[in-house]
């Protein structure tokens, strides 16, 4: 019982896997909508913006804005999209944090020159921007693996884009955003997100997804996909309490069903 004062007490060091620094956290909404966008247009290149903010030291991607499926390389509507995103994010405290793109050819998983140009431009306004390069071969109805490669820029002028080091083993930290959680993020397992994605694809929810090309052709379509978010039962960062409850219930159902299947 008497303690020897000269005995050194070493501080308890947590095991290494708990100390992994998260560089990017992604809301399930953003990932599911991006993949559904690519699934909706299987023969075309698609692209979109990622919206989010910095949370403590990690980047939090809260939502995505699907942009184009017709021609991804021309700029005027992209500039309009950036201004629309700014207006949308104004009251949410988020901003444009990245760009996601799926190439036209099935096995093409590299960043094209145009993607790097766009990403460099976004990096100028938000220094920790990310690029999600969608892996086309992993986008299928039974999604069981992460279908994106996350690129971050190294190098001073922000032009050197390399795969982010915490995702080379294929893990991305998924979170849910609930308005009842007062802005905190609720971590969830990626299997839950893959389950939501699979059930969304099987229910053909991607047919209701609207991107900027669609809303420019039909003005009354909502490029923020608010009703799709609600239908998917996913967490919305600025949803009503009722929608959040629906989201929580649906997430719970998805959790139990994915546990049953696994």
């Amino acid at each position, binding site marked *: 019982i008497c303690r020897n004062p000269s005995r050194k007490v070493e501080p308890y060091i947590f095991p290494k896997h708990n100390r992994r620094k998260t560089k990017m956290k992604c809301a399930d909404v953003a990932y599911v909508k991006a993949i559904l966008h690519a699934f909706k247009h299987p*023969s075309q290149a698609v692209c979109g913006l990622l919206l989010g903010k910095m949370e403590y030291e990690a980047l939090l991607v809260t939502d995505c804005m699907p942009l184009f499926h017709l*021609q991804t*390389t*021309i*700029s*005027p*509507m992209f*500039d*309009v999209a950036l*201004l*629309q995103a*700014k*207006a*949308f994010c*104004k009251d949410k405290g988020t901003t444009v944090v990245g760009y996601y793109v799926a190439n*036209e*050819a099935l096995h*093409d998983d590299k960043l094209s*020159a*145009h993607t790097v*140009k766009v990403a460099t431009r976004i990096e100028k306004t938000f220094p920790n921007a990310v690029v999600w390069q969608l892996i086309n071969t992993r986008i299928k109805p039974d999604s069981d693996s992460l279908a994106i490669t996350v690129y971050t820029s190294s190098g001073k002028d922000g032009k050197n884009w390399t795969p982010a080091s915490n995702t080379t083993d294929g893990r991305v930290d998924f979170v849910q955003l609930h308005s009842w959680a007062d802005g905190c993020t609720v971590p969830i397992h990626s299997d839950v997100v893959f389950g939501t994605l699979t059930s969304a694809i099987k229910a*053909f929810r991607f*047919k209701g997804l609207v991107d900027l090309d669609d809303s*420019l*052709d039909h*003005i*009354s379509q*909502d490029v*923020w996909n608010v009703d799709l978010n609600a239908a998917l039962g996913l967490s919305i960062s600025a949803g009503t309490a009722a929608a959040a409850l629906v989201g929580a219930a649906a997430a719970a159902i998805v959790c139990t069903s994915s546990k049953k299947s696994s």
Partner: protein
Amino acid sequence: VLSVYFFSLFATMKHEPIVHPKYPHEYKKLTFNEMRRLLQDIRQNPVRKPALVYFCGMELLQNHAGALGDEIWSIYEQVLIAALDVNQIADAEFCWVKLSDRFSKESQRVQRLKAMILEAEGNYDLAEEVYKDILEETNKCDIHSHKRRVAIAKARGNRADAIGKLEEFLKLYQTDEEAWHELACLHLDGCEYSKACYCYEELILHDPNNWMFMLKYAECLYSLGEKKHMLEARKYYAQSICLHDSVRNLRSYYGLWICCIMLATQYNMKDNAENKDLLKWVVSKLRGLYTTHCSEGQAAKPLLMLKMNQLSE
């Protein structure tokens, strides 16, 4: 008796617009006549909806083949191509066998369809050989074989080769609008905006009253980036609005708006009276479109965006 005859005549002449079902659970509820009209409509106004065509086509071919008559051969061809699109190669082969039994295997069209099946399986070399045979032996000017060769080059990821083949084809057929459009898209995929501009200029020469060509030309010019191109783009956006002043041309309104804003903020034209007038006009037009066609909730964010970017006078 006469009135019944005239009534049936008018009934067949009635052209109702066909609504394509959006969700697959609606496909099963279509009747035989509806499926038939749907496939006819897609043949006449081509859209790429392979799942719908495959489902309706297979239903008709398997269960109602006797009632189709001579239309069945067009449906076999249509279903073959749709089956390739949804990766049902066995069903595509089935259709091909039926077509090659009816029209001989030496028929150009049947050979082309075989080559398309080879392409879908990934045998690009064999498919290329078939197209080369068709072009060298039977018909040097076969449009579809030329275009499929371009598609093979594109599928292999060889954009430069695709552009070369397409330019060769355009030397033979200079008025093929689809080909000029495809060449422009190939150039845009590689961010060669000036070459894409040239293609759209050709399209505008072919059809100066087409508002979509003006719109696409304006988008290319904008992407080139300098002040003179931005001014040209503004002009062509305005011309597209003149040709087609409606809510379907929302892209032109947005294009004109973003041109005016970019000229004012980045190219030192803030005090230019013409730019200011155009900007004011297009903002009022956009506001009008959103308030007319959208509910209040949906129009809120675009109207906020227009307000946020109003340049102070």
